[in-house]
């Protein structure tokens, strides 16, 4: 059941992205920025949490889920340690993913060369 919901919710979020690309010609970079920011604000409004509870990775794996982690971290940080927490919370919650992206991104860029596209 978990997997069905992950599939449906994750797939649904990607369809929203596809519609934005197809209908508004937004570039992928803008899509990523829009999705992260949307994730942060939807989390702040309490609208994203139910999606995470229902869809699990279907809601956390898309970039809106990255925004969810940032937003939740900042809110929890703010509740625990005030203004300092609001600044540290988001980065703390996403540190693993960001650090992994930097390291694995760097290593892959060093090791591999671009494949020629047909």
């Amino acid at each position, binding site marked *: 059941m978990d997997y069905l919901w992950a599939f449906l919710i994750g797939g649904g979020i990607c369809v929203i992205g596809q519609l934005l690309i197809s209908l508004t010609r937004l570039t992928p970079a803008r899509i990523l920025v829009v999705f992260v920011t949307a994730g942060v604000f939807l989390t702040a409004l309490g609208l994203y949490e139910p999606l995470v509870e229902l869809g699990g*990775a279907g809601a956390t794996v898309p*970039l809106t889920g990255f925004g969810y982690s940032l937003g939740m971290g900042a*809110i929890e940080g703010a*509740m625990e340690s005030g203004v300092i927490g609001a*600044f540290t919370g988001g980065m703390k919650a996403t540190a693993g993913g*960001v650090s992994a*992206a930097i390291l694995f991104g760097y290593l*892959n860029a*060093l090791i591999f060369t671009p494949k020629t596209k047909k």
Partner: protein
Amino acid sequence: MPKPQTAQQKQYQQRVNEKMPRSNTFSQCIRAFVSGGIICCIGQAVRDLGEGPLGLSQDDTAAFTAMVMVFLGATLTGLGIYDKIGTWAGAGSIVPITGFANSIVSPAMEFKREGFVMGVGAKLFSIAGPVLVYGVSASILVGLIAYLMR
């Protein structure tokens, strides 16, 4: 306000419209749905692995899932496989966090010849940078508002 066109220009424009590949939004959405769904199911499997056999806490499971998915996305990009998936999957390969990893590796790989600092080092962030700028700024704003409304 479009300029008045000569007959020749009109003919040309008509020809362009005929030849332009028509993107079928509906079939692209189906592809994005299926591929995005599959990627999220892989993420769910990683999550279950973290929560179950590895016995990680909830926060650590979230970090673990992000790290593994980023690793997969970055490595498949390096191997040239992710871009092949992307031509079929469209947004299904862009929106998941594996697409974020792809957006980090691709430009860095492309600009390697410009050196290790301003080539690889800087281009790693050509798309990830804006994502972090807007995401982190928004999170601080939200955190501050939550603090004031507490």
